[in-house]
C-alpha cells in the first residue's frame, strides 16, 4: 500500500484486540459500531466548479476529501489504422450492435481508443510519478475503460472525438487508502459532466451550441431518451477480510489488521435503451444488474506491523513462563507459534473461498455496491431537481 | 632558521644538494613532499621549497588549496551540532566535521562544561589528524591541563584569508618578516585582538567595530593583492586616513 507507507502507529496490543473483535462471527464488532456492510456517512456535491465540464467533491467521514474535475477538448481522431483497439472492446461492440439498432454509428465502430481518456491523480506530499500514485490512477482508469462505455460516449463523428481529462485531487492527507474516495468522486464527476450540444451534422467539422443550457449530459439521467445505452461509470470499493469476516469501507485502524484487501470495481450492466415512447419510472434503477469489472488485491499495511510479545517472553512482565525466556533471546523476531491475544502480522495468502465471498458480497443484489450507486445517483438527481 | 628556496612544480626533481643532510637526525618531510623509495623526494604541489637545517626538515610552502588538518595545528572551528559526548565542529568548508569532546576544555566537569550552540566559534588545537578517522580537536593541553588561550571565541569577526597568509601570521616575528600589517596597525594605536587559525580563518575582536573592520580589510587586501612590506604600509596609511 504505497500511498500509506507511513508506519502503522497502533500498538500490538490494540492490533490484537482489533483483530479479535473484527474476526468474531457471525457479526464482527467494528470500532465505530457499524455493521460489516455499512458505509460511513459521506458528504457529496456535484457541479462545484463552473469552469469545468463536470466536477464533484466528496468528504468521507474520517475527514478525507477529494475533488475531481473533468475537462473535455475536441480532438481529431487518428485514422483507423493507427488506432489502438482493445480486443475485448471489439467483442463488446458486436454484442451491442443489435441493441443500438443502426443509429448510424456502425461504420467506424472500432475507431475508439483508450487514449481519449487521460487521468491524473494528485496526492499531497507525493510526486505524481510516485509508484503509489501511478498505481492508484491506473486502478481508477482501468475500471473506467474496462467496459468501453466511456470512450463510446466521447465520439463526436468519424473524424473527431472528445478528449477527456480527469484530474483527481486528494485535498486532505491520505489518511487511509484513498482509492474508494477517489473512485466515488470520479464517478460523481462523470455523472455531472456535460458536453456542449453538437449542432453540426455528420462528419463535418464539429460545431457546438454556445448556450451552456443546451448542453447534454455525458451520462443522461435515467428516464431521458437517449440513443446510448444506460450504462453508468464504475465504482471501486475496498473490501477487506479478517478471519472469516468481510468488511466494507474499512477505516485506517481496521486496515491495520486486514488479512487481505481487495479493490473491487463494479458497474451496472447496461440495460436496453429506453424505447422512445415509454417513460422510464425511477423504479427501474432498482432493477440494475451489477457486473464485475476488475479485482485488484492491495497489500495491506498490516503486514509490516510490529509483532506483539507474549507475556511469557517479555522481560518487562518478568516472564511469567520463566522457562522459555533464556532459550529465546531472539524471540522477538523469531517465528513463534501464534498465541491467543498476541498480535502477529498476517503471513501468507488468503483462502479462495474467502476471496470469492468478498467478491460475491460486493456484487450482491441490494448489497453495498447497490447501496452506494443508489446514494450517488441520489446526489446527481438532487442536483438536477435544484437546477 | 628556515631557508627560502627555489620554486617547484609537482613532480619536479629537487636538487639533492638542496636537501638538508644532518649527520644524526632523520630527514623530516613536511607538507607537499613525498618520498618515493629508494631515494627520490618529489613535490606534490607547486610552491617554494623551504628547508631547516637545524631540524633537518624540508617542506613546500604553498598558498591556497583547502585546509588539510595536521596534528598540533591551531584552528578556528564552528560548532555544527552537539551529539553524545562531542561537539561536531566545522574546520573547513565542505569537509567532514571534526570532533571536539565536551570535556576537552580547561578545568571542566560534566556539569561545568561550556554550552556551545550551533554556530559558535572555538579556537582549538588539532589533537588527532588521520586520514581514515575523524579529526579530533581539543581546547586544552593534555599535558598541562591549561587552555593556553584556546577555547570559545566571543564576539568579534572572522575574516577568511589564504592558508599561506594564515601560516605566515602564526609564525614568530623572526621567521616572518614579510607580513607586517598587523604590527603597523598596532603601532598606529588601534586596539584589537587577533586569533589566527591555520585553516585560513582570522578572528579579530576586542576593539571597536570600525577598527575591527579596518584590520580585517587591511589583512584581506594584503592577502588578495599579495602586498610586500612597502605596499602594506601604503594600505595601512590609506585605511587610517579613511578612518579619520
Amino acid at each position, binding site marked *: 500500500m504505497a500511498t500509506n507507507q507511513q*508506519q502503522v502507529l497502533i500498538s500490538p496490543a490494540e492490533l490484537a484486540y482489533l483483530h479479535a473483535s473484527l474476526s468474531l462471527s457471525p457479526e464482527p464488532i467494528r470500532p465505530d459500531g457499524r455493521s460489516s456492510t455499512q458505509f460511513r456517512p459521506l458528504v457529496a456535491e456535484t457541479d462545484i466548479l463552473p469552469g469545468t465540464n463536470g466536477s464533484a467533491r466528496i468528504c468521507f467521514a474520517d475527514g478525507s476529501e477529494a475533488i475531481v474535475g473533468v475537462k473535455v477538448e475536441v480532438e481529431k481522431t487518428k485514422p483507423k489504422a493507427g488506432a489502438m483497439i482493445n480486443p475485448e472492446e471489439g467483442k463488446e461492440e458486436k454484442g451491442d450492435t443489435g441493441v443500438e439498432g443502426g443509429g448510424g454509428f456502425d461504420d467506424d465502430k472500432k475507431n475508439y481508443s483508450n487514449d481519449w481518456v487521460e487521468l491524473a491523480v494528485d496526492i499531497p506530499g507525493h510526486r505524481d510519478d510516485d509508484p503509489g500514485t501511478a498505481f492508484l490512477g491506473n486502478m481508477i482508469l482501468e475500471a473506467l475503460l474496462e467496459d468501453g462505455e466511456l470512450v463510446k460516449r466521447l465520439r463526436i463523428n468519424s473524424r473527431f472525438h472528445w478528449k477527456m481529462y480527469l484530474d483527481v485531487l486528494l485535498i486532505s492527507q491520505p489518511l487511509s487508502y484513498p482509492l474508494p474516495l477517489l473512485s466515488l468522486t470520479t464517478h460523481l464527476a462523470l455523472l455531472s459532466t456535460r458536453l456542449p450540444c453538437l449542432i453540426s451534422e455528420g462528419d463535418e467539422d464539429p460545431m457546438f451550441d454556445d448556450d451552456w443550457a443546451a448542453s447534454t449530459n455525458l451520462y443522461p439521467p435515467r428516464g431521458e431518451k437517449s440513443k446510448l445505452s444506460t450504462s453508468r461509470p464504475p465504482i471501486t470499493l475496498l473490501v477487506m477480510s479478517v478471519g472469516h469476516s468481510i468488511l466494507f469501507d474499512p477505516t485506517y485502524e481496521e486496515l491495520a489488521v486486514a488479512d487481505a484487501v481487495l479493490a473491487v470495481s463494479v458497474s451496472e450492466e447496461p440495460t436496453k435503451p429506453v424505447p422512445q415512447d415509454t417513460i422510464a419510472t425511477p423504479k427501474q434503477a432498482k432493477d440494475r444488474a451489477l457486473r464485475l469489472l476488475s479485482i485488484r488485491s492491495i497489500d495491506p499495511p498490516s503486514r509490516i506491523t510490529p509483532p506483539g510479545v507474549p507475556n511469557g517472553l517479555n522481560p518487562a512482565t518478568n516472564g511469567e513462563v520463566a522457562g522459555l525466556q533464556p532459550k529465546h533471546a531472539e524471540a522477538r523476531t523469531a517465528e513463534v507459534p501464534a498465541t491467543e491475544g498476541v498480535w502477529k502480522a498476517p503471513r501468507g495468502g488468503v483462502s479462495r473461498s474467502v476471496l470469492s465471498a468478498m467478491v460475491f458480497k460486493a456484487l450482491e443484489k441490494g448489497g453495498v455496491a447497490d447501496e452506494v450507486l443508489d446514494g450517488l445517483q441520489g446526489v446527481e438527481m438532487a442536483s438536477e431537481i435544484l437546477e | 632558521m628556515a631557508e627560502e628556496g627555489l620554486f617547484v612544480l609537482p613532480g619536479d626533481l629537487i636538487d639533492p644538494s638542496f636537501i638538508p643532510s644532518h649527520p644524526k637526525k632523520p630527514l623530516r618531510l613536511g607538507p607537499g613532499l613525498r618520498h618515493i623509495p629508494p631515494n627520490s623526494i618529489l613535490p606534490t604541489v607547486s610552491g617554494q621549497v623551504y628547508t631547516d637545517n637545524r631540524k633537518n626538515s624540508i617542506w613546500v610552502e604553498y598558498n591556497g588549496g583547502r585546509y588539510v588538518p595536521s596534528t598540533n595545528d591551531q584552528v578556528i572551528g564552528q560548532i555544527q551540532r552537539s551529539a553524545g559526548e562531542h561537539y561536531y565542529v566545522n574546520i573547513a568548508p565542505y569537509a567532514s566535521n571534526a570532533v571536539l569532546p565536551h570535556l576537552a576544555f580547561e578545568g571542566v566537569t560534566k556539569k561545568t562544561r561550556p554550552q556551545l550552540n550551533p*554556530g*559558535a566559534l572555538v579556537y582549538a588545537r588539532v589533537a588527532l589528524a588521520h586520514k581514515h578517522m575523524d579529526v579530533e580537536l581539543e581546547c586544552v593541553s593534555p599535558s598541562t591541563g591549561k587552555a593556553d588561550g584556546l577555547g570559545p571565541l566571543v564576539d*568579534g569577526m*572572522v575574516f577568511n584569508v589564504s592558508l599561506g597568509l594564515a601560516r605566515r601570521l602564526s609564525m614568530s616575528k623572526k621567521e616572518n618578516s614579510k607580513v607586517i600589517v598587523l604590527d603597523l596597525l598596532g603601532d598606529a594605536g588601534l586596539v584589537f585582538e587577533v586569533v589566527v587559525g591555520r585553516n585560513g580563518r582570522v578572528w579579530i575582536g576586542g576593539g571597536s*567595530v570600525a577598527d575591527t573592520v579596518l584590520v580585517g580589510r587591511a589583512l584581506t587586501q594584503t592577502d588578495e593583492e599579495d602586498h610586500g612590506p612597502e605596499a602594506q604600509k601604503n594600505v595601512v596609511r590609506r585605511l587610517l586616513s579613511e578612518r579619520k
Partner: protein
Amino acid sequence: MEKGTVELQVWHQKFLRYLACEGSPPAPGRISSRDPLHDKSSSHSPSSGASQSWFAIGIALIFSSFLKSPDKLNSETQIPLPAVNMPREAEISTNEKQFLKTALTENVRIDGRLFEQYRPLSLGFGEEFGVAEVELGKTRILAKVSAEVTVPYADRPFDGIFQIVTELSPMVSPAFEVNRPTETEVLLSRLLEKTVRRSGALDTESLCLMAGKKCWAVRVDVHVLSHDGNLVDAACVAVVAALRHFRKPDTSVEGEMVTVYTAAEREPTPLSWLHSPYCVTWSFYGEEGEMALLDASWKEEQVQVASFTVSLNRHGEVCQIAKLGGVAVDAVLLLKCTAGATVEVKRISEMVDQKLEEDAKRRDKGGLMAELRAENERES
C-alpha cells in the same frame, strides 16, 4: 559500509566457497539490524581469499543498493545517512552574524563600502562573439550565447526560441548538485527569465526564418564561477552584455531553402535588441527591515531579513519587481529603493554600452577599413 552489506558479504564469501566445491550451500542470511559498530571487525578485516572478497564486495554493494529501497525494508532496518557525507553549504557563525548586525547599526559595512555603494563591477568579452564575463567583487559570472536553426514551437510559429539556462554547478560550491535545482538556482533563473525574456528585450519575432518551419534558437548559458553574493545583478549584466555582443550568422531564404553563411562569406549580424534591462538588488536589515543595502556580499546575504530585486532599463521602465517574502518592509522605503535603482541602472547601462563600444573598436581595428582598401586596390 552498511549493515546489510556486511551480512551479504559474508554470505557471498560462503557462496563463492561453495561454488569452489567447499562445503554446503549457505542460507542467505536475514538482514539484521545490529549496530554497525559491532560489525566493524568483519567489514574491515581482509578475510581469507583477498581477490574473492573484493569480488564479493562488488556484488554485495550491488545487492545492498537493491535492498536499500524503502519498500523492501521497514524502518527498523533503515539506516540513517551519515551526515558527514553530504556536502553542505558553508554557514556563517553566530559571531559573524552578530558583528555584521552591530556594524550596520553603526553604519559600517565589513568591506568598508557605503550602504548605497556597489562593489567594483567589471565586464570583459571573450575572443568569440557572445561571451561575457562579469566580476562583481568576488562574484564571477560567465555567460555564453549560442544559436542554431531549429523548428519553432507549434503554438508560436512566428517566434524564434530564446532560452536562458542557469546552472549552479558544484564548481561554485559542492552544495550545488547537477540536475537538482536548488532554491537559489530556481530564483535566479526566474529572475533572469522575467527581466530579460518576459520584458521583451530580445525581439523573438526577428529570429523567425520561415514561419512554422525554421527559426533561430538562441540560448544563453549562465555559468556561475564564484559566488560572493548578489548573483542576480551580476548574472543579469552578463546575460545582457553577452546577448548584445553576440553575432549570429547571416542567412538568406529562397523559397523553402534557408542558407546559413559562415563568417567568412558574410558578416554575422547582431540580434535585434529592443532594450537593456538590468537588475538591482537591495537587502534589508534590522527588526523592521529599515536599513537598505545595495549589492550585498555573500556574508551580508546570510543575515539579511529581506531582499528586493527590481529590474529597470535606462528609460525608467520597470521590467520586474521581486520582493519574495521576508520581513515586511515599509512601502515608502521600497519606493525609495526603486528610485535609487533607477540611478544605479543608468550607471550600469552606461558602463555596459561603453565596454561594448570599446570591444567593437578593438575588433574593428582595420576591419572595415582594411576590407575597403583591399577592394580599392583590386579596382585600381
